[in-house]
């Protein structure tokens, strides 16, 4: 697969392509998707150097969520009705 410079990465190109190919064989049941939303990570807002509002990272909460998502079997913790057939 020639990605033609579409991706900049420190993963060797051959490995990256191989991983993409391998990933395509992974069952949807074994894929966990998590979206960490702004409102879920602490609620504390601060003003950044450019004047914009930023969210202070709730590191413990984020780490807990990441750990949970990467645990074996995490993909099975799916809300009812959301499992693929």
């Amino acid at each position, binding site marked *: 697969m020639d990605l033609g410079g579409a991706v900049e*990465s420190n993963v060797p190109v051959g490995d990256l392509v191989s991983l993409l190919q391998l*990933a395509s064989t992974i069952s949807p049941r074994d894929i966990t*998707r998590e979206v960490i939303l702004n409102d879920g990570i602490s609620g504390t807002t601060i003003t950044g150097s450019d004047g914009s509002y930023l969210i202070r990272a709730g590191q413990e909460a984020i780490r807990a969520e990441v750990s949970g998502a990467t645990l074996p079997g995490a993909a099975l913790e799916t809300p009812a009705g959301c499992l693929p057939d």
Partner: protein
Amino acid sequence: MNRRQASLASDRDPTEPAYESGPQILDAPARPTSKRVPAPAEPGPLSTQLGDHSTTVLVADQAAPVTIDTSERLNVLILGVDVADRFAGNTDVVMLLSADLESRSVALISFPRDLYVADCNRSSDRLNGIYSRYGADAMLEVMTELTGQPITYYAVVNFDGFARIIDRLGGVDIDANRDFDDVVPNSDGSGEILQLSRRENHLDAARPSCTHALARTTHPVISPESAASSRSSPVSFQACCVPLLSSTFPPYSWIWAVLSNPTSPSAIS
């Protein structure tokens, strides 16, 4: 684990970028949305040998097989920058792909770009500015600290790259929530037309400007109605990965895309 399904209520104009007015809660659409991505048209020869902590994958156009060590979890930071043809700019997409190749399980975790990361000993305060200011290694360091996961690898994609990947995967099917006709501005002042019909649209190399514009648009284009059906439909890895990569278009669409095929649409509560 403390999880909850993302709020599905929205009380403001969904076409209005939330980040323009600060770190507002990025509400999901009124109903979850759907996007289906076809498998690669011709994925090429693929051969795997599992059970010995290595996987040999034969890839088309490749002279020698590549051996991947599958004995350890693989963490790859996926970054989507807000420029067309360079690997610079703000990383409005920050995702961790964590793969256990032995058990063949993958976690894709998306992070808000507006995180304040001063606790990571960087003078820069916004997460999406770390890469452009300090480089990929600094971004890896920050994300390793933030997540507690050792992240060794990264991959950065820009708008052009996103379109190219979509083409290489055989295109992407977009279920638009309405007829969609938008001029997406380029940085040089020109514009590209993103024209979608309600319901299914197939974007690929035959519609290069559309694919490119899809990467840029800040408008939600995914059909909420079709999400319900997708919840019970099998999804491919591409169906996850491509919409997630397409989160290069902030701020709504990436959430919509992620929620479009949810196995676990959740946020920390």
